[in-house]
């Protein structure tokens, strides 16, 4: 899922600016699960902002949609958006832009910082596991992605910064992905995969190749 985190309130307050009435919109999908922007957080943010601006008598309404990235789910907000001077989206960056696209006449602001695609390692801790590079190599790396999980995205084994299974970039928090890959492949008796020289990656399918699209002719109506 997409993992995000609420922006500092001060930054959000700056975005509010002179607006007297705003709508906070949560999203019921990924950001609910990662506890950044679901119904609960939308309510908390709206209440917090009313407290923060209590002397100016500003009003913050809130609502939450099923998935903020879908036009159909966002559309029903039209009246509420129209009645507000602006929208604070608690969706990921995709949700923010969907709101902005559906309501081009309204000012839409992001209340979250969208971080990465990842998984909850434990309750309250999320870690990046996929970089969305567009050409998956997990079959060669024991199901552990070095592009997302090696600090240098190396493709041919660990650099000299791997010590005791940790990455020198932040030994306390980052595991060396290549140590994990090594251990997994060793257990599978498939270490010869790590003897192969992996050729330079074609990054054109990743964020480096220009704006990306996925197109399925058969499902186009």
């Amino acid at each position, binding site marked *: 899922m997409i993992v995000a985190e609420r922006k500092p309130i001060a930054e959000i307050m700056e975005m509010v600016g002179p607006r007297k009435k705003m709508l906070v919109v949560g999203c*019921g999908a990924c950001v*609910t*699960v990662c*506890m950044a922007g*679901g*119904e609960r*957080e939308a*309510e908390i943010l709206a209440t917090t902002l009313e407290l923060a601006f209590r002397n100016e008598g500003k009003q913050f309404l809130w609502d939450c949609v099923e998935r903020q990235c879908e036009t159909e789910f966002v559309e029903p907000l039209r009246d509420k958006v129209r009645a507000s001077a602006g929208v604070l989206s608690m969706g990921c960056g995709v949700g923010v832009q969907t709101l902005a696209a559906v309501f081009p006449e309204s000012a839409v602001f992001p209340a979250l910082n969208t971080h990465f695609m990842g998984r909850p390692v434990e309750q309250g801790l999320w870690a990046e596991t996929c970089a969305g590079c567009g050409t998956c190599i997990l079959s060669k790396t024991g199901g552990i992605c070095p592009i997302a999980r090696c600090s240098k995205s190396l493709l041919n084994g660990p650099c000299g910064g791997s010590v005791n299974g940790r990455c020198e970039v932040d030994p306390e928090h980052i595991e060396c992905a290549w140590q994990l890959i090594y251990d997994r492949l060793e257990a599978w008796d498939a270490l010869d995969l790590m003897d192969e020289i992996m050729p330079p990656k074609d990054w054109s399918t990743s964020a480096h190749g220009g704006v990306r699209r996925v197109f399925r002719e058969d499902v186009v109506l």
Partner: protein
Amino acid sequence: MDVRKTVALLSNPEHVSLSKRVLVLGGGIGGIETALNLASLGCACTLVEPGESLEARAEAMFSSHNAAKDYAGFFSTRKAALFRDFRINVLLKTRVVSVAGHIGDFRVRTDCAGKTSAQGFGAIVVATGFELDAALPDTEMPHRVISHLELEKRIRNFRQGMRSGRAGSVIPKDVCFIVADSGDDSAIRSASALKGALAVQKFWQSNVFVCCQNVGAPREEMEKLYGEARSSGVVFFKFDEERPAISIGDTVLEVTVRDSSAGPDGEWKGLIKIACDLLVVPERFVPRPDTACLRRLLRVNADASGFLQENNVWLKPGASNRKGIFFVGGCRGSLDVDDILVEARAVALEVYNLVRSDEVPLPIGIATVDAAKCALCLTCLRSCPHAAVEVDHNPETGGKAALVVGIACEACGICVAECPANAIQMGEGEHQQAATELVRLR
């Protein structure tokens, strides 16, 4: 009709029937006693033991660790009773693979040599015991610094050797024991050291020194042992905070201890050096390695050192964070056989009281999930302190959603507070949500 009410009714039928069959995990003395007590109360039991027989489990009990008595005879009598009892089904070489469900209806899958089977139980009693970690201080002469268990083995071999006329190994001339206070198991360690000291003196006629912090709890058996040891010539040194230092020379070990017992003039605190050729130190009692796995399967909590049952005043001895799951004996850190016997009886009664009636009233004010709002984030499942939440097909929608199992819910409202989708409400009961109360404040 209100969807929430419907869900509440469907997921919490008013009458919940309970299975009376009880699963007992572990075939040591705790497990055997629990099963026998339950059977005598009329509960059918299944006792599951991963080992090939129950004897291996009992070995720790025969050793001198367990207070001052000799339990070998007692154990074999109880074991015989266990196998005789038609209400008790003993499964050897069997492990628990998965546990689903809740009190009254735990669905447990077990594995016996690759063959799995499933059965339902009303309650589960864990009696998987403890283990001794004989890891000793790093030394280049490991055979000269040994654990209590190793000492017992050596004495046993020596005696067998004597009987069969074979020459034994070299007999140590001076033997030193060190026993430091270490919490709950101090009494047992002391008993072990005292019994070991007496045995060494009796069979090897060695000079025996015991450096201790405190000679155990004031128990009658312990006093007796201590008296016996003193009168047979065992020399005691008592130390305070400063632990004895051990230095290892080429041929002898030297223990340096600051003796804090008052001398004749009432002031003397001497630094004493004991040269010995065998040093005996106690093992550590640790949870069995499978305890952590069992914890995950059963979704129960442990204390900081990994023993089952956390330290909480609301939990009666043997009770867990989950209704219907109990702990007996070594797995929760009880080491003394006499204590374990009492525990087994008490837990059997608790279990019996829980499952004796065909139906139990549902708790009042339990939480309910609005399946339509549930984002399946699993937060409630992870944060419920009583493991009362499941993710299952919702009876209302047919789709998957979190489900608070009424009979296991303790109505604390923690899941309500954690849910990021605002999808859980406290049921209509005596508890009103804090937010409702607040309305009055405005």
